[in-house]
């Protein structure tokens, strides 16, 4: 008997036990769909995390952080200077492996208001123009701060599109893009002129969704609140945060908001952040060493600072993804194995039920190979159908997962995951069929015919 005939016989056999075959397939369907859905979730998570990483400034960004004075220098701790603008100047002058230095002086808990509306920005920071390159900002309207703004400590600000949305109305609400250049807003009661606005940051997916909604204006799906926040889907946390930025010149921050905090009539000169970018990621270690040497001079040998690279973040992301992938994979593998056991079980029951048929087939000339193939093909066909149904089901499973646990990351069904899931379902069909097929093929015709 040739393979085509075996397949036809196998499919007929499965068709004649539709319900039983469906139940048998269920294990494989669950295994395949959970494998594909899991990997889609993990892929979405991975993409979201990578996008967020870029939104936060990219891989070559290094944070210079305050650190407890180390124990062996404890007696010097009252002389620790902390991070000041001196460090920034020194690094710019003497650390050529550091491409960019961006000092930041933040004002915590600030409120920005205008005409009765107010918003709490994610960060209100005094900055240099270096911050644009540092945090990968794109200025869409107006200008950034000039040296004159810095020199004069002008009351000007550059805002993220989210601030505009809150105070002036978003394009979705008003139907047009409001550009609030020249408008005045109050930061903790002090008036500032808006001189520039960043573009609206969003994830790749949100951008596509928004463009689609624009192209299909008749479909008004937006019945919910205009804007979902925090860990909600829209934009994701990193993008949401970035859109709610307010920048003012560093000097303005120091003069206007720090004067009350300092000593001896000098406003508090401490910077809240110094961000660095290295000239080349390959030179990360030497660059950090160089920066450290420079800073040890400005800090009089007291090591009250530390570097935090994105490498830590990348490692965290990678290990989180690895873990998610492993646990998802194990769950899916268990599903597939259980499915395989189900198939083997039903095939064993099926050949016991068909011993007489097997005896008749052998009596009229079926060989070991014929019977072996017939049973194996049946098992593989069940697995293939189950695998295909599982792929379809995974589309639904992804939606269900998204509904149960909405995240900012769209699950992405990848081709390799589908291929892997389908191939393993076929492989499991073969494995599950081997023992029943062997048992059937080895049956002695006489004993099989006599079986009641």
């Amino acid at each position, binding site marked *: *008997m040739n393979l085509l005939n075996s397949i036809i016989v196998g499919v007929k056999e499965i068709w004649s036990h539709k319900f039983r075959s469906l139940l048998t397939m269920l294990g494989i369907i669950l295994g395949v769909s959970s494998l594909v859905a899991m990997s889609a979730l993990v892929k979405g998570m991975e993409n979201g995390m990578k996008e967020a990483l870029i939104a936060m400034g990219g891989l070559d960004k290094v944070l210079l952080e305050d650190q407890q004075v180390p124990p062996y220098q404890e007696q010097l701790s009252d002389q620790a200077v902390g991070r000041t603008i001196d460090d920034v100047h020194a690094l710019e002058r003497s650390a050529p492996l550091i491409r960019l230095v961006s000092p930041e002086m933040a004002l915590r808990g600030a409120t920005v208001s205008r005409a009765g509306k107010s918003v709490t920005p994610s960060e209100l920071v005094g900055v240099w123009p270096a911050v644009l390159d540092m945090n990968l900002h794109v200025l869409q309207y107006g200008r950034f701060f000039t040296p004159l703004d810095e020199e004069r400590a002008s009351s000007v600000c550059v805002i993220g599109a989210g601030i505009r949305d809150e105070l002036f109305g978003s394009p979705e609400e008003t139907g047009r893009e409001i550009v609030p250049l020249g408008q005045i807003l109050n930061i903790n009661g002090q008036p500032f002129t808006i001189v520039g606005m960043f573009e609206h940051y969003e994830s790749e997916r949100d951008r596509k969704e928004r463009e689609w909604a624009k192209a299909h204006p008749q479909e008004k799906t937006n019945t919910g609140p205009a804007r979902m926040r925090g860990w909600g889907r829209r934009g994701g946390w990193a993008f949401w945060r970035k859109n709610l930025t307010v920048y003012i010149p560093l000097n303005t921050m120091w003069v206007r908001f720090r004067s009350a905090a300092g000593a001896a009539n000098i406003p508090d000169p401490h910077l809240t952040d110094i961000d660095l970018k290295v000239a080349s990621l390959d030179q990360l270690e030497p660059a950090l060493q160089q920066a450290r040497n420079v800073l040890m001079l400005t800090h009089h040998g007291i090591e009250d600072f530390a570097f935090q690279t994105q490498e830590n973040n990348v490692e965290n992301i990678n290990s989180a993804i690895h873990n998610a992938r492993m646990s998802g994979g194990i769950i899916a593998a268990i599903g597939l194995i259980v499915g395989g056991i189900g198939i083997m079980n039903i095939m064993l029951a099926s050949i016991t039920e068909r011993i007489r048929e097997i005896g008749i087939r052998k*009596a009229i000339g079926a*060989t070991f190979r014929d019977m072996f193939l017939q049973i194996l093909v049946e098992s593989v066909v069940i697995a293939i159908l189950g695998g295909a149904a599982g792929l379809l089901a995974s589309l639904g499973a992804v939606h269900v997962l998204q509904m149960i646990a909405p995240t900012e990351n769209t699950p992405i069904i990848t081709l390799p995951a589908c291929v892997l899931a389908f191939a393993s379902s076929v492989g499991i069909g073969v494995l599950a069929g081997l023992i029943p097929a062997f048992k059937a093929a080895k049956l002695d015709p006489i004993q099989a015919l006599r079986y009641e």
Partner: protein
Amino acid sequence: MALVELRNVSKIYHLGGEEIRALDDVSLDIEAGEFISIIGPSGSGKSTLMHILGCLDTPTKGTIQIDGTMIQDATARQLAGIRNRKIGFVFQFFNLLPKLNVLQNVELPMVYGGLSARARRDRAMRALQMVDLENRSKHRPMQLSGGQQQRVAIARALVNDPKIVFADEPTGNLDSHTGEVILELLRKLSQEGRTIALVTHDPEIAAVTPRRIEIRDGKISRHIDPKLAGQPRVEPVGVSV
């Protein structure tokens, strides 16, 4: 050389330490074209002999040669081939596959013989014509009477044009009238030149065949062969008819 040569064949079963000689040193030749019946009481070893002749079972001792092939030396694969091409088997309980229709049942030996779908169909229809059932080709076995089912089984046994047809109590499960129809069919086939060996415990049926072999306790007890002009061939000497 005879079509079938059985030499000193024994089949011994062991049941709980007890030895059961289902066949005890049986020798037998069947020539091409013969119509032969094997008769004996229940448990005498008729079916055992049939199964060994039909290559469904192997002897414990002795040799068997069918159409020049030594069966006891053949591989499982060769045996399957011989069952498929050289032997047609008709069972007492018909043994049709209930899920296949009549035509598919008759086609089945050719499926394992590797014929094309077209050739299978044509030959199966011709075999069904021989047993007068071509108008029932689309029916399931369950929709046929016992006699009709047995005729389908005979068509299936004939479809690969075998050297010899073995029938183990082909009428044993039928009423006497239907049994006669089947017997008539077998006789007709024999007259067309086919080699047929049938098992029965009914002397009336055995009387139809020119050559008769009686088995008792696994041994041939009586042998009636027209070629030997009434001379018993095998010990112990019995009474000729």
